[in-house]
């Protein structure tokens, strides 16, 4: 075997090893996201996303994904004060929101859903919904009810 062949083989072996390790990294990342959700969100939203049981902290399970399907909902998901003012970097925040949508409400996400990335979160979170939060949510929920009829 020539030196070049040996080199090629070594490169291939390295690539294969890295490829095998990839799922490990991804899972570690997910665990980190879940930990951050536990630390920064689950106090109010609870570990499984069911919330407080009244309208103050609504149930996210099998529902929160609908927001990504209606107009203005995508912005709302980032601009609610709990998300936009969280003491977290936009990159982590994007991971957490994606994880929440996937974990609590995967079936309600639209087929063409594009994951949030750092840049989008950074851009959207500059605007924080304050006094108009309740009205905005009501409006979006009625849009969602309309959306459900057709889908």
């Amino acid at each position, binding site marked *: 075997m020539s030196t070049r062949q040996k080199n090629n083989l070594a490169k291939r072996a390295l690539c294969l090893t890295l490829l095998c390790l990839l799922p490990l990294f991804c899972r570690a990342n997910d*665990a*980190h996201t879940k*930990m951050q959700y*536990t*630390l*920064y969100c*689950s*106090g*109010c939203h*609870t*570990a499984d996303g*069911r*919330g*407080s*049981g*009244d309208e*103050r*902290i609504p149930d996210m399970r099998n529902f929160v994904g609908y927001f990504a399907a209606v107009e203005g909902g995508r912005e709302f998901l980032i601009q609610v004060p*709990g998300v936009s003012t969280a*003491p977290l970097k936009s990159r982590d925040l994007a991971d957490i929101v994606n994880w929440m949508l996937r974990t609590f409400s995967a079936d309600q996400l639209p087929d063409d859903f594009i994951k949030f990335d750092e840049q989008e979160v950074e851009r959207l979170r500059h605007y924080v919904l304050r006094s108009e939060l309740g009205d905005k949510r009501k409006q979006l929920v009625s849009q969602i009810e309309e959306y459900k009829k057709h889908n």
Partner: protein
Amino acid sequence: MKWFDKFFENKTRNIARTSSRRSFLANVGKAVVGVSVIPALPVAKAAGGGSSAGAHYPGVSPQPSDDSADPGDPTTCEYWRYCGIDGFLCSCCGGSQSACPPGTEMSPITWIGTCLNPADNKHYIISYNDCCGKAACGRCFCNRNEDDTPMYRAFTNNDTNWCVGASSETYVCSTAVILGTSMES
């Protein structure tokens, strides 16, 4: 009554003869300083209880842990999980560090922080669920406030009454439930 007058006249004259106004003032000064210093002495603190080291709330027997991985006594404020607590310890109120006393309900929403476990030097995620019911427990008040944030960051503020999520909004006591380990401190 003559002997009575005589007695006090003698005493008064005696005092006037043997003491000066300045020494009287000096003695009063000593008494004032002395009395104010006594409660600051470590002996007085240990007897008085409260949040000083190893102190026990009167009437609550110690519950030292047998588990070397979870060291300390959950009826004392120094127990490691209580690093961010503010309230009455449920361990002193008929519950435990992770369970509410009978007749109370654990609030579904809570504030969450991390504490360092001295046994393995890892940071654990701790959920300070309040127990809610008829009346405040009143035993073993503990306020440590590590990681506590001001009211405008309500999600990590321990002055909030977290019983707003339970059926009774009356606060009874606080628990410290472990949710997992934290990868960041």
